[in-house]
Structures are given as structure tokens and as C-alpha cells.
């Protein structure tokens, strides 16, 4: 497929596509902000605070998408031993973790005026919090080995195990919430969104996604370079050692 599965093919593709992605992301987010802050009406229940939704929901989306990309490319790395897939998984994790954090932080800023508290054990917030810890575990495991290859392989297995677990965790947390539902909480999922709110939301989701893909490409290119640098340094050491051995034999 376009030679995309090899590092050099990917770099060529990324260099060609990235500029368009940056432009698309800037235009979409710019337009989204215009509609979100100026055009869209205040919610009849939540007032102006509903405007936090236009950044909260895209962050949540990217938090989940970042994990899916990570898990699927981990699967590709384990099954086909594709060197690029490992790097994509590694590059996606910090970006996904950042947006998961943003989802929690903006949710908290939305919760204070609406629920009267910075944190509620709402099913969605709780699931996102657990997702954040899954990210932390993945990143920590990846960096825990002296050999980066070991770290990548162990982390890939963990990413898959976590991916299988995410629906179970989601279900258990939902179920736990229905048992402990406090009466005062307002439901987040109201009736279907009015078009005036749907437009900015979709624009922002699309813009955030373009941003994510563009940043991911930069990070993957950076990981490719890091791997090349590592390989070069290793071969430098080997040649120094070989020279040393040759000297020893000669002397």
C-alpha cells in the first residue's frame, strides 16, 4: 500500500501529506472555534458552560482513538513484526495520554459550575481516568528496559491486553454507576444535539483529529530517526572495537 509499511515510504508519504493536514486542522479548528464561541447558542439548561463541550468531546475522542491506534499498531507489530508499527504505537501513546488528561481537566472545569463539584464519579469520567492509567502503565513499561526493543515488545503485549480489557472496564464502571447513581446528577447525554451545536462539535472533532494525525506523523518520523541514530552509534562502537582487536593482534 503505497510502500507505507516501510520507514522510508512512510517518511515520503508523511512529508507530502503533513502540510495539508496542518492547514486542514487550522481551518477546521478555526471554523469550529468561530461557531463554538460566537455562533452557537447557549444551552437552555447549562447556559454558556456548554461551550466547554466543544473541546471536551474532541479530547475524549482523541484519548480513545490514541489508545486504539496504539493497540492496533501493537497488534501489527506483534503479528507481522513490522518495525514501523512499533514506532507508531510508541508515538501515539503520549499524544493520547495528553488528550485523555485534557478530557478529564475540561470535564472537571465543566463539572464545577454544573454539578457543583470538581470531580464526580461519573461513569464516563471514571472510565477516562482508568484509561489515563492504562496509558501511564504502557509508557512506563516501554521505558523500563535498557534495550528499547524489549520495551517495545513488552509494551505491545500490554497494549493488546489493555485493549481487550477496555470494554470490560467500561461495562463494569457503567454498571457500578447505575448502582450508586446520586439523584442530583444531571444527565450528560440529553436529547440529540441541535444542528447549531452539532456543527461546531463536528468541526472541532475533525480539526482535532487532523491535528492528532499530523503530530503523530512528526513523532513517528522522529522515532525513525532515533532508531537510525541508535543503529549508527552501535555500528560505530562495533567498528571501534574491531579496530581495537586488530590493533591488539598487530601489537
Amino acid at each position, binding site marked *: 500500500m503505497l510502500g507505507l509499511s516501510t520507514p522510508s515510504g512512510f517518511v515520503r508519504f508523511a512529508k507530502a501529506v503533513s502540510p495539508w493536514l496542518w492547514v486542514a486542522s487550522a481551518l477546521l479548528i478555526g471554523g469550529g472555534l468561530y461557531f463554538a464561541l460566537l455562533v452557537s447558542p447557549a444551552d437552555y439548561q447549562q447556559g454558556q458552560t456548554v461551550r466547554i463541550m466543544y473541546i471536551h468531546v474532541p479530547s475524549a475522542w482523541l484519548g480513545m482513538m490514541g489508545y486504539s491506534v496504539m493497540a492496533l499498531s501493537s497488534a501489527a507489530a506483534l503479528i507481522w513484526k513490522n518495525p514501523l508499527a512499533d514506532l507508531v504505537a510508541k508515538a501515539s501513546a503520549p499524544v493520547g495520554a495528553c488528550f485523555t488528561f485534557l478530557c478529564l481537566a475540561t470535564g472537571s472545569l465543566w463539572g464545577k459550575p454544573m454539578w457543583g463539584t470538581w470531580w464526580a464519579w461519573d461513569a464516563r469520567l471514571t472510565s477516562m481516568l482508568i484509561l489515563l492509567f492504562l496509558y501511564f502503565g504502557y509508557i512506563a513499561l516501554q521505558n523500563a528496559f535498557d534495550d528499547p526493543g524489549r520495551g517495545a515488545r513488552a509494551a505491545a503485549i500490554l497494549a493488546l*491486553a489493555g485493549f481487550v480489557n477496555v470494554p470490560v472496564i467500561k461495562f463494569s464502571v457503567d454498571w457500578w454507576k447505575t448502582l450508586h447513581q446520586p439523584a442530583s446528577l444531571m444527565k450528560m447525554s440529553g436529547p440529540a444535539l441541535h444542528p447549531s451545536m452539532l456543527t461546531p462539535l463536528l468541526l472541532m472533532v475533525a480539526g482535532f483529529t487532523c491535528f492528532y494525525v499530523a503530530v503523530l506523523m512528526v513523532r513517528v518520523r522522529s522515532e525513525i530517526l532515533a532508531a537510525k541514530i541508535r543503529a549508527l552509534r552501535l555500528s560505530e562502537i562495533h567498528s571501534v572495537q574491531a579496530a581495537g582487536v586488530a590493533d591488539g593482534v598487530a601489537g
Partner: protein
Amino acid sequence: MNRLFEIIRRDLRLALRQGSDSVMVVTFFVLTVILFPFGIGPEANILERVSPGVLWVTALLASMLSLDRLFQADYEDGSLELLALTPTALEVLVIGKVAAHWLTTGLPLMVAAPVLAVLLHMNADGFLALLATMLIGTPILSLIGAMGAALVLGARRGGVLLSLLVLPLYIPVLIFGVGAIDAAIQGLETGAQLLLMGGILLAALPLAPLAAAAAVRQARE
């Protein structure tokens, strides 16, 4: 099948010879639970209210104590290498080790839990549910834990890392375990929670050894 029992017997023998692991895990469990009345006060109704949660959270932490030795000792002295070279599949080896871990950790926790439930004034209606959830839940902990233990083989600060990897994956067990006991205390049906836990156990039984075996394999490379 014979190989499986051999592995279990070997691990049990090693555990018995070194002695302390099971005793330490149970002591930690008892001691930590005893801390709670000091932390939140001795009022019987408060203790009764929190007892299912306290018992389960503490059991999660206690079962993690002996996890990092599950593969680490064999990895360091090279016997994991020898075990992997035998014709037995690594998956079988992992299942054997999980069974041994459960016998030396999960089972003692299960025996100790009712005694601690008495100390926390848990309603007698909850006892049966406590035992049932422990019976289904602790093997899940051993299975998921074995995967984590295999992943951190050879890692820096493996012990702390292990808890970071494993605890988020334990959350469903905690939720359903406590949910079943709470339901039993309120006189409600506990069938749904136990079935859900059973489902998780049935899913973890093949998947966790697969993942753990893959992790052991890549650790040996």
C-alpha cells in the same frame, strides 16, 4: 496434563521450602484490614458499611505482593530457560504457575477473609457472597497478575511497575466482587454479579496465559 501437575507440585514445593510467602501475604492482609478501624473509627455501622470494599481492596493489594516472584526467581537462576526448553508449551507452564500462585496466595486470603469480616462487623448475610466472590475473583487476580509479572521480567523497578500495570486491570473484579457482597447484605440477588465474574474468569483463563507466555517468550530473546 501430567506436566501441568508436575509444575504445580514443583512450585508448591519451592514455596513451602522457602516458607514465608503465603504467611507474609496473609499477615499483610490481616494487618492492613486491622488498620482501617484505627483510620475511620470503631463504630460498628460504619465498619459494616465499608467492610466489603475494605476486604476486597486489601485482598487486591495483598495478592500483588507475591506476584513479582512468580517468574522473577526462575528467570534469574536460569530455570525458566530450562523449563521453556522442555517440550511442554509455555502456556501450560504459565497455567501451572498461576495455579500454584493461587494455592499459595488466593486460597489463604479466602480462608482469612471471613475472620476479618467478623472483625469488621460484616452482616452475616454477606459471608456466603464474600466466599463466593473470593473463590471466583482471586483466580482472576492470579491470572492477570501472572501476565503483569511476565511483562516486567528484567525491567528496572519491576515491583512498582507491576502494580501500575495490574491494578487498573483489577478494577472490574473489585466492582463486581463488592457489588455481590453489598447485594447479599441488602437481601438482593447476587447471581448477576457472580455470573459476570465467572464470565471474566472464563475469558481470562485462556487469554491471560497466552499473553503471559508471549511475554516470557520475548523476555528470553
